[in-house]
């Protein structure tokens, strides 16, 4: 239906496509109607009521987010009645909110604070409700802190957890004045099915849900002269960080970020992309080995499709929801944890530093990585492999605290030994990127030729559809992989756990004939991660993805197996993919968890 309706907004006639809401119509006209419960990633709730507008002929105001435009509507978005009502609603929210802004982690980036400032709420006549309630702070999770006193009950987190992630760790409970956002039986987030993905944090308009930050711990490590602090930066951080520091979305800031990290005092600035390349070597080999066992040896114990294991939110999800399918997971650790394990072994050795003197910090677009680093099994170096995980947002805080004028920094290069990477490592940050990187390498190993896509860009696995499928036919393989001749390698990509869920359901039902599936917990992959700048929305994710693919195309090395540092690592230390050292340091086991 491409029919149009004629309406007026603030007296000006406009034509709007049928089915658009008043909010969308106003946006088209360059009029911002304030919102709190609305988010472009989520279904309409219509519960905060700050977006109310006046429709001529109606005494009551309408929620712009939930009201479709109808022919002849005369809409006022800024009448006195609208302003007065809106202002009072903001006052009500403030009365219910622990508005101790100067002590809030979201100070300066809080939607309620912005609205209060816009509407110049200078006094608080209403009775403060926070002191009357017994709020507690849930700070038991290594990833997420939940503070109910700052919650405005917009339910964005609940909808995020249900609609985007299909996890439903969060729910609305009770009613009336006792209504609150909580978990099953009001347990700590640590003790429920939460995957720590942090999408709730990214979608929270206030400071009710924030990441657990390790800023002070990292400053202390940097200040300690006896510690050698290494930092790794995940692929998606470089295309998000700029947004926190005054740049428009879609700008890659790799060089400036490296320069900033060096100025912050890290002893060595290295790249998670390096271990992303390493992941491809290990995981690609694992896939081919599984295929061989299944197709040649007819080994029924081999689990196919093989699923990627880079996304810790996804790992926790499958442990809870599909524990019977843990064998499908690649045994590869995530790039962060591979890096951590190597930092305190290979790197320590090569640089002649005692591993106990190394503090390993990672900058991640992710909150689940914090939990991952805390997993008891992540101690294969003999120490905790990764000591502190900071989100993209926390890195921006470090940079601001250090007083660096980010945009004036001269771009710098990563340090060597675990700082070199390929374009394949970079695209790990986008949904489909791990798949594309894996195909670039696996196809070449098997056939001796580059993947048959122009400029190595495997377009079918890119994009933003929640689930994407691709297949690649193997012809004339080299002798070792002759058994794959004519095999159509079938792949799928899923991002956002709700999509992971539907793919896993078909795997469970036995109807998925894929060989390899890439799963990313967050919509858009890591570039839309829970630790990325706020806001994140479909448009911003698209821009970050463009930046990532541009970065890949601009790099001289595009394939993981061409990374010279990777070659050196295997030659000097690991010997071969899936070898004994790899097995010990780079692979892991998973834990069955309760679904309920």
């Amino acid at each position, binding site marked *: 239906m491409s029919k149009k309706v004629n309406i007026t907004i603030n007296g000006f006639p406009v034509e709007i496509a049928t089915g658009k809401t008043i909010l969308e119509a106003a946006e088209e006209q360059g009029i911002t109607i304030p919102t709190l419960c609305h988010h472009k990633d989520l279904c309409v709730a219509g519960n905060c009521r700050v977006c109310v507008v006046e429709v001529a002929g109606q005494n009551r105001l309408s929620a712009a987010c939930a009201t479709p435009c109808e022919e002849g509507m005369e809409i006022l978005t800024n009448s006195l009645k609208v302003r007065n009502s809106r202002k009072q609603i903001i006052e009500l929210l403030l009365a219910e909110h622990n508005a101790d802004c100067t002590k809030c982690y979201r100070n300066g980036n809080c939607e309620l604070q912005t609205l209060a400032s816009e509407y110049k709420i200078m006094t608080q006549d209403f009775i403060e409700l926070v002191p009357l309630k017994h709020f507690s702070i849930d700070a038991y999770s290594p990833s997420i802190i939940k503070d109910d006193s700052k919650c405005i009950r917009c339910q964005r987190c609940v909808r995020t957890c*249900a609609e985007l992630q299909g996890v439903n*760790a969060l*729910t609305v*409970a009770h009613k009336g004045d006792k209504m609150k956002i909580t978990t*099953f039986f009001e347990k700590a987030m640590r003790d429920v099915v939460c995957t720590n993905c942090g999408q709730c944090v990214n979608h929270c308009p206030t400071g009710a849900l924030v990441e657990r930050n390790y800023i002070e711990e990292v400053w202390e490590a940097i200040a300690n002269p006896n510690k050698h602090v290494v930092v790794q930066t995940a692929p998606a951080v470089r295309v998000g960080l700029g947004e926190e520091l005054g740049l428009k979305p879609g700008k890659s800031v790799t060089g400036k970020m490296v320069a900033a990290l060096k100025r912050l005092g890290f002893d060595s600035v290295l790249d998670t992309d390096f271990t992303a390349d390493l992941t491809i070597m290990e995981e690609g080999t694992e896939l081919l080995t599984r295929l061989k066992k299944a197709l040649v040896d007819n080994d029924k114990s081999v689990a196919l499709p093989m699923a990627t294991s880079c996304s810790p939110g996804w790992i926790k999800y499958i442990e809870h929801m599909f524990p019977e399918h843990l064998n499908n997971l690649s045994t590869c650790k995530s790039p962060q944890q591979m890096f951590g394990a190597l930092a305190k072994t290979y790197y320590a050795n090569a640089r002649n530093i005692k591993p106990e003197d190394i503090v390993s910090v990672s900058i991640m677009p992710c909150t689940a990585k914090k939990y991952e680093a805390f997993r008891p099994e992540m101690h294969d170096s003999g120490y905790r492999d990764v000591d502190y995980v900071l989100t993209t947002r926390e890195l921006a805080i470090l940079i601001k605290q250090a007083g660096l004028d980010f945009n004036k920094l001269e771009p710098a290069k990563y340090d060597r030994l675990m700082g070199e990477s390929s374009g394949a490592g970079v695209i790990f940050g986008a949904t489909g990127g791990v798949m594309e990187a894996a195909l670039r390498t696996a196809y070449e190993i098997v056939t001796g030729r580059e993947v048959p896509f122009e400029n190595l860009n495997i377009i079918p696995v890119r994009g933003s559809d929640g689930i994407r499928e691709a297949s690649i036919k193997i012809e004339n393989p080299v002798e070792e992989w002759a058994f794959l001749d004519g095999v159509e390698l079938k792949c799928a990509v899923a991002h956002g756990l709700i999509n992971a869920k539907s793919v896993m359901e078909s795997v469970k039902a036995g109807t998925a004939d894929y060989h390899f599936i890439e799963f990313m917990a967050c919509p858009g992959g890591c570039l839309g991660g829970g630790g990325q700048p706020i806001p994140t929305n479909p448009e911003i994710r698209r821009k970050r993805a463009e930046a990532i693919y541009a970065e890949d195309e601009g790099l001289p090395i595009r394939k993981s197996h061409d990374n010279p540092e990777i070659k050196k690592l295997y030659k000097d230390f690991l010997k071969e993919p899936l070898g004994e050292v790899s097995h010990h340091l780079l692979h892991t086991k998973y834990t069955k968890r309760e*679904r309920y």
Partner: protein
Amino acid sequence: MDPIQTLVKNLAEKHGRSRESVLPILQGVVEQEKFLSERSMIEIAREIDIPAADVYGTATFYSFLETKPTGQFIIRVCKTITCAMKGKNQILFAIEDMLKIGLGETTPDKQFTLLETNCLGWCHKAPAMLINDEIYTELTPEKVREILSGYMKVNANH
């Protein structure tokens, strides 16, 4: 299977396993157990394949679906306007005095739980109260004592 599992399974057989069956199943568990334990909510979630948090969120919305342990008999005294005007407080005092418990509490022998509730729809015969599903109206302290004695006697005979 333990009794809770059996109960939930039977209720699911009776009411179905779709989302619309949630309320009847919750009610069925409450009828039997008087309240919804963590365990029973997990079983319901498992049985009809919905998130446990959703079961909790739904259950806590409804005042008659208790999520804390209660006594065998739940007394709900109406506190809405007409009952309040017609002596609800005297009724409460009489019950508290007789059972030696306060509002929201359960007797040590786990027989009675005393609660208040919103309008029961007996304003013309105020004050009113429910004991489990039984309605008692036009209450006076004397009448309340008589009613409760009846419940105690029945119980003593068990």
